[in-house]
């Protein structure tokens, strides 16, 4: 039995890893929702990001190509989503669901086609590895978690600070708030609502695509059918749970990551699976999220115009 501090350290380390794609995708979804667009298709974008990163890395032999591919496909799908919802003004939730459907089919198809491709069967595909920061590693409890993550995780952390600054202290933040709370006022102020919303959606697609790549060419080293397994929907829940604020999102995601880590540790303890069904542990995080959402007070702090097409006409 590992000691408590070892177990905690391990859980934190695990939490930081599993939180990374969620937080990254969360940045994009947060910005999009604050600008008034709810993207239910984030799951599909992450999935496509994962498969495209994997495919590009396998076919070209370069993990960096995988990152680029994931970013590109994220932007592409986001552009499609923006065209349909912001410009043609179709319903956002249904469009997002259609994108999920499309992505499920496309990713599985691509994966099957890839398996038969000659390049794929030659040995391993290139992946990114974790990096280690020597000094930080020594710090008790959190050191291991802080010092041994993927490069992308550190980028995500710094990006979070940058994003927070932009949203809180610059005009960009004001514009995004206006887009979501009072698009008519934004329009009167000379802000081109649809173009800005499109930009926010593209940002969301970029984040989600990269988040997907984290799964396939970093953390999980490979692609499996349906590998996102609901993470995109979790991000949706976490954005709302964090009350559409960046610190709230990060905190909520970390908590979720810790819970997930606890769940995995419990499940791996000897005798766990003989007495408890393994899926019970898997269910805990989702059930906990649902209960947490239910316990939040009812005030709808969300952007007033989220989900509504503009101009309303």
């Amino acid at each position, binding site marked *: 039995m590992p000691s408590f501090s070892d177990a905690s350290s391990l859980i934190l380390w695990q939490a930081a890893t599993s939180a990374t794609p969620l937080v990254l995708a969360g940045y994009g979804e947060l910005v999009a929702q604050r600008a008034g667009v709810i993207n239910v298709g984030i799951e599909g974008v992450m999935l496509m990001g994962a498969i495209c990163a994997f495919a590009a890395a396998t076919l070209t032999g370069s993990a960096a190509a995988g990152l680029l591919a994931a970013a590109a496909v994220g932007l592409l799908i986001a552009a499609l989503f923006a065209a349909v919802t912001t410009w043609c003004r179709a319903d956002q939730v249904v469009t997002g669901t259609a*994108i999920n459907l499309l992505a499920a089919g496309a990713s599985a198809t691509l994966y099957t*086609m890839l398996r038969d491709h000659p390049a794929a069967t030659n040995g391993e595909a290139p992946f990114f590895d974790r990096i280690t920061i020597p000094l930080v590693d020594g710090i008790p409890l959190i050191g291991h978690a802080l010092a041994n993550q993927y490069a992308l995780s550190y980028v995500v952390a710094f990006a979070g600070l940058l994003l927070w600054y932009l949203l809180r202290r610059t005009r960009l933040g004001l514009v995004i708030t206006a887009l979501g709370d009072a698009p008519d006022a934004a329009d009167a102020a000379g802000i081109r609502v649809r173009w800005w919303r499109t930009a926010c959606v593209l940002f969301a697609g970029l984040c989600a695509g990269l988040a997907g790549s984290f799964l396939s060419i970093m953390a999980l080293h490979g692609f499996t059918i349906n590998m996102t397994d609901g993470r995109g929907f979790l991000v949706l829940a976490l954005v709302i749970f964090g009350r559409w604020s960046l610190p709230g999102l990060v905190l909520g995601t970390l908590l979720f990551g810790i819970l997930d880590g606890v769940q995995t540790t419990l499940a791996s303890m000897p005798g766990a699976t003989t007495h408890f069904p393994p899926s019970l542990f898997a269910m805990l995080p989702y059930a906990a999220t649902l209960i947490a959402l239910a316990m939040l007070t009812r005030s709808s702090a969300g952007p007033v115009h989220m989900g509504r097409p503009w101009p309303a*006409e």
Partner: protein
Amino acid sequence: MKQLLTQLALVLVSIAAAIVLIMLGLYACGYPAHRILTLWAGGAIATRFDIAVSLKIACPLMLTGLAAGIAFRCGVINIGAEGQSLIGALAAAAFATAVAPSLPSSVAIPLALLAAILAGAAWAAIAALLDRYRGVPVVLSTILLNFIALQCVKIMLEGPTGPLKDPLTGVPQSRLLPAAYHLPLLPPATGMSSLHIGIFVALAAALIAWLIQSRTTFGFELRVTGLNPTAARLAGIPVAARQLSVMLLSGGLAGLAGAIQLLGITHILGISQPGIGYAGIAVALLGRLHPAGIILAALFFGMLDNGATNVEISRYGLPHDTADIVKGIIVLCILVGAAYISRHGIIAKER
């Protein structure tokens, strides 16, 4: 009449666009698209056997399509049909294998279906009540409940603790359902003996849905609630109760779909996700939220899936999931087209 023609045109154009796009994609990947298209169509409707299989696949989709359709028409975004159908199947499986395995068919099947309907409705009720009393958006709770439903099924089926698990195999699945619980097939004289009577259940459900929707005060109230809940309330319609009713109906239909899938096709409950819930949303949109349209749309999707299997086992080996791509494209085309129509219509009238 003009409305009907416009909607029909929208559907046909969307399907045509999707087919064209997929063919272009296939050509780009080096496949002979025209041959694949022939195989696809052939697999769907070439012989009566094929048609029967298409109908068989379409059957649960009709029900999940009706489930999504009734919800959307009333302004409730129920994306939880996936979970509700799983819970319905679970309830039917539990009833069939654990509760009353030795009932005669005439009693067993209706009871199992009833159990599924009630279970699906209850699962939907969770989301409805969370929305009503805790303000959790239905969009979010139904999605999370979909995952929880799958995990519930897994818990019931994973060894060694799963109560419904078949003790004789290592695979997480239930026992084979007793023969009495298998849906009877159509008589061989029809030439469609691979099709089970569940198709009549689905058609009956569609008929009932249509009657309620267009000819009853209840249906009128549902429609009004969906279009303008404030005005509905001030007209004396109990809005919250109606929205809850809609979720229950929707969940019940989805649960029924899961049970039909189990009793008619698979006969064993497993842990793979059939995907009929999400596909039902696409069916509802393609069917323009009208029960008759939904039946036809489900049939079309059934043909899509059937044909895709045919292509998969052919020498081209294209994975079955390409059918999902087609469905996704169709839905997107419909969304764009419908938005264009409604905007164009509005502009025309204001002048």
